[in-house]
């Protein structure tokens, strides 16, 4: 990739990306594999997001769900919750979507050498963490244990189950819980904090990566702190409405943060802890 290929005609103009593959993950979640038609975006880091345009419908923020540096198409996993996400999730192979990015802060994978890692996920929160998980699973380190704790509302809302199985085979300590079981479910039932009561290592010195609904992140952070993880070592991914992704529209404010610029990944302490504890911030 040469430098000039990244030159953009303006920060608001999306690059065209073609849908080269798609997978229905469950009833409302779809993963899209995208390849550039002409102008590829700059290399990304795990945890960053792109602004995706369904042409004629609108533009929304979607995390990159593939691993940084991986060859081939870039992946995004979209939950169908409104007009734009519906149009994106329904796009077919060959369709062109718009893409701007990569934006925001990342999980800081390069800092995760020589320390144990706890990844805590609620629902589709695994999408922004999938790239990081792939990296951690595929690049094992003798002095690093990786623990993944996943909570989903229902068994059929668990995303990437086969991939989680692969990570388990690669040495990741994976546990999954559902809020409400169905007849076929033999695993744990309950919220994610119930499978976060112990760790196979000392929490002190470990780094936690947490993504899910704010209430889930709050309770998970408390559990992690109880397990000895330092609040500064807990990284959470936060969301607010995003109209631009580039610190120009004011929508993604959360107290002192512009989350498209200072987030989405921020340390739980000192600032995020209070922000996600109080209402209407």
């Amino acid at each position, binding site marked *: 990739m040469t430098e000039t290929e990244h030159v953009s005609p303006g920060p608001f103009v999306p690059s065209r990306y073609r849908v080269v593959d798609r997978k229905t993950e469950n009833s409302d979640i779809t993963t899209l594999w995208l390849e550039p038609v002409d102008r590829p975006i700059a290399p990304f880091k795990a945890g960053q997001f792109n602004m995706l345009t369904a042409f*004629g419908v609108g533009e929304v923020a979607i995390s990159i769900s593939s691993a940084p540096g991986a060859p081939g198409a870039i992946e995004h996993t979209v939950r169908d919750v409104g007009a734009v996400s519906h149009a994106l999730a329904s796009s077919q192979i060959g369709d*062109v979507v*718009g893409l701007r990015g990569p934006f925001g802060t990342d999980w800081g994978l390069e800092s995760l050498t020589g320390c144990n890692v706890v990844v805590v996920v609620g629902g589709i929160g695994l999408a922004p963490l999938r790239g990081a998980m792939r990296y951690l699973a595929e690049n094992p380190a003798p002095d690093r244990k990786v623990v993944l704790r996943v909570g989903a509302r229902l068994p059929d809302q668990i995303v990437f189950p086969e991939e989680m199985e692969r990570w388990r085979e690669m040495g990741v300590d994976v546990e999954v819980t559902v809020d409400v079981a169905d007849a076929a479910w033999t695993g744990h039932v309950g919220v994610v904090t119930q499978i976060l009561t112990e760790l196979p290592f000392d929490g002190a010195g470990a780094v936690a990566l947490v993504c899910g609904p704010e209430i889930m992140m709050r309770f998970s952070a408390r559990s992690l702190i109880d397990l000895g993880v330092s609040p500064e070592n807990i990284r959470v991914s936060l969301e607010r409405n995003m*109209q631009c992704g580039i610190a*120009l529209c004011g929508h993604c404010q959360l*107290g002192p943060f512009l989350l498209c610029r200072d987030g989405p990944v921020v340390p739980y302490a000192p600032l995020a802890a209070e922000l996600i504890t109080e209402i209407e911030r």
Partner: protein
Amino acid sequence: MPSPDAVVIDANGVDSLITSLRAQGFRVMGPVVANGAIVHREIRAAKQLPVGWHDEQEPGSYRLSHGDDGEMFGWAVGPESFKQSVFPSRSVLWRARRDGQDLAVEATGDDVAPEAFFGARPCEVAALKVLGGVLAGAASPDPVFTRRRETAFVVTVECGRPAATCFCTSMGSGPGAAADFDLALTELAGPSGRFLVRVGSERGAAVLAGVASRPATAEDHRARDEVLGHAVAAISRTLDAEAAPGLLARNLEHPRWDDVAGRCLACGNCTLVCPTCFCAAVEETTDLAGTVEETRRWDTCFDLAHSYLHGGSVRVSTRSRYRQWMTHKLSTWVDQFGNSGCVGCGRCITWCPAGIDITEECAAIAASDGAVKTSEPTAVRDR
């Protein structure tokens, strides 16, 4: 001949200044009386200026009156700021044309003629800098703002008659102009039609070169000091800008937010008139021929849709929306951009239909610093 730093011109000089700017290719936007207020329109001659007009401003009220004093700039600020010129309320960001499964995206240019902001008050010049800190200071600067601000010629006019709603002295933005202008005028008292002009840039000197003037004397400078001294003395509202960031940050559960929420209509007027509010939303439309157009328009944090996330709004109550607005202006703006988001122009006070006064709200919180809402939050948001 090297031009002096300051000269004096008369009313005809103001007229030839406008002519000179037009001759240099600027579209001159200046103050005129229209619809009962002083607003910005394209001007061609000094006679279009609001000569003899004065504004009386109070919380929730703005009234013009006319006198026969012949003052050209005997008013403070109107509802419009030059924000509209550098950050248009609507702009098309790009267009895309469909061709079967394929699609071509094209950037839209911004090719309006450079404007001269004639009669911009010092607080407005400060506001342009605050806006620039956001829109030009970002890692990917806003191209429309950047181009328009860089090409704009700023003729600031210092204030001799501040309004009752002004508090620029608290925010360090007026009534005198210190920087970021091409030319700065001061309408001197005494025999009408005497203006001290200070040069702020080479462009300013070039434009001024075509205008009949005489070098300013020490007496002219003293006359300017007197005008500004009167203005400072006339400003009655204050805000503790240094204390505000910490004060608001530690009082997010103060009962005053409920009190103001009982008065605020969440109309968003304050954000529309504010010269630094920059929130914008994008909209995508498709015409019958299949052309997709991405438009950016001003938005307001008082609108429920502003904080829309996953099927609902984060900030539902008026309390949380007013708190978002005011804490952003005075506190979190400092965290985000390194300076206050308020320049003390007083527009939000004047144009609030409920007469809500940001200085009064801030003082009320300071008066019972640390007070907390007695009732517990009713629900924990999960969005």
